């Protein structure tokens, strides 16, 4: 697949605002403030921003798990009204069903669609193969390492045939080695499947290693500070001069924005 190929916008956020009422104080907390953003078909988009700026909220709005206070979220041209299997979510905490084995986590979405047990199982086995987990199908989540859990979560989401993958700091609780491995794995997977991906992180390194587009958010209330294009060819090196240069540029830019 040609990584450079891009379609039209798959997700459009139009003047999107979201605020929460704090339970204790009753204060209004503005998290997103008239945010505009587009995600293009088939691209790997990374969203970076400081802790607590509203990255998770943004992703949940796209996923349909939150309702906007004002503005609009559109997916493939139609307004989002709730969660659905077209928009697959991968959570930081894996969110695997602990009482189901790896393969039965993957079949969860399949059997909801009414796919018969045997067929679902065969499909699930395929997806587990895709994420390199053949041989571990019958282990329970607690028997899997962090990286393996993350792969099962991805396989489970892929099996629902989403047209976009929304990932919320999925690698945050992995140790550095495993995390690097998962980044490489995800890039590889994306290049093979061609799904659109929105990947939220607070690590600029991670964004630069994976993303074609890197959307920098401001402190809360979040606005899009700037979108960086990253045309480095895949597979990327973490130590190359261009990598280091882009990383430093983004860090600096964000730092200036932050210190305002």
């Amino acid at each position, binding site marked *: 697949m040609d990584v450079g190929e891009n379609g039209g916008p798959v997700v459009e956020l139009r003047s999107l605002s979201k605020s929460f009422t704090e339970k204790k104080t009753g204060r209004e907390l503005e998290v997103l403030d008239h945010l505009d953003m587009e995600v293009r078909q088939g691209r790997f988009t990374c969203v970076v921003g400081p802790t607590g700026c509203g990255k998770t909220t943004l992703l949940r709005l796209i996923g349909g798990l939150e309702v906007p206070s004002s503005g609009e979220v559109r997916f493939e041209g139609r307004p989002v009204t709730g969660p659905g299997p077209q928009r697959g979510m991968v959570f930081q905490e894996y969110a695997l069903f*602990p*009482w189901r084995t790896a393969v039965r986590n993957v079949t969860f*979405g399949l059997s*909801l669609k009414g796919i018969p047990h045997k067929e679902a199982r065969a499909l699930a086995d395929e997806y587990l193969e895709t994420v390199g987990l053949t041989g571990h199908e019958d282990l329970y989540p607690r028997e899997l390492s962090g990286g393996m859990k993350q792969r099962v979560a991805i396989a489970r989401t892929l099996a*629902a045939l989403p047209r976009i993958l929304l990932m919320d700091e999925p690698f945050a609780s992995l140790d550095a080695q495993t995390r690097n491995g998962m980044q490489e794995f995800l890039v590889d997977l994306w290049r093979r499947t061609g799904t659109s991906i929105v990947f939220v992180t607070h690590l600029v390194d991670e964004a630069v290693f994976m993303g074609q587009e890197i959307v920098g958010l401001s402190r809360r209330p979040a606005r899009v500070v700037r979108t960086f294009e990253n045309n480095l060819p895949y597979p990327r090196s973490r130590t190359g001069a261009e990598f280091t240069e882009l990383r430093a540029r983004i860090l600096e830019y964000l730092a200036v924005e932050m210190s305002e």
Partner: protein
Amino acid sequence: MRKWKYISPLVALGLWQLLAMVGVLGRTPSPVDVAEGFYDLIVTGLPPGYYLQWHLLASLERVLVGFAFALVLAVPLGILMGWSRGFDTVMDPLVEVVRPVPPLAWLPLAVIWFGIGIFSAAFMIFLGAFFPILLNTITGVKSVDPHLVEAARTLGARRRAILLRVLTPGAMPSIITGVRIGIGIGWMTLVAAEMTGVKSGYGLGYLILTARDIARYDIVVAGMVVIGVVGFLMDRLVKYAEKRLLGWM
């Protein structure tokens, strides 16, 4: 360490016998008296012809019926209450006021409603077992990681699937704890339950009450020992089942 496991009941028994022999226990039966009571229960029966094993079986039957009703009603109700905030708000005060009423206080009504025999006994046991199962189910459902529900929703699950395939299995550990407590408290309601009258003349609680009426304290204590040991064994059984059922934990 394992071999020390049975030391405390043994030491307790020895001490008890010693105190009885020294005479400080007065009319409390000694372990030897209780052993004799056991012998009588097994050989002669109380009332004569009514043997221990049948008393035990009759009680187990009552407890199981009462417990089964508690299980079948408390789990679905608990899942609904744990899931729907509105339903919980509405039902909670009722539950909280009925809960502290002692099963024994229901005795007069139990007899009016269910007559004598297994159903009124089972009703009292039901009252004992119902609330722990209900409360644990509610807690269990509330403690299911909300991310799991959200994950299920993004995978296309709707209400029915969320209830049956996410909340129910997710609450299972807590439900099983509730079952353990519930069956324990149901069993502890036994004596009260059998005060509703037994048709068959069998029952451990009935046995204890009869023995008390005729001042056979050795048999009273023997009956208590049986209740204690069986209660202990039931708890172990549920614990064992729990281990098998919750292999994933």
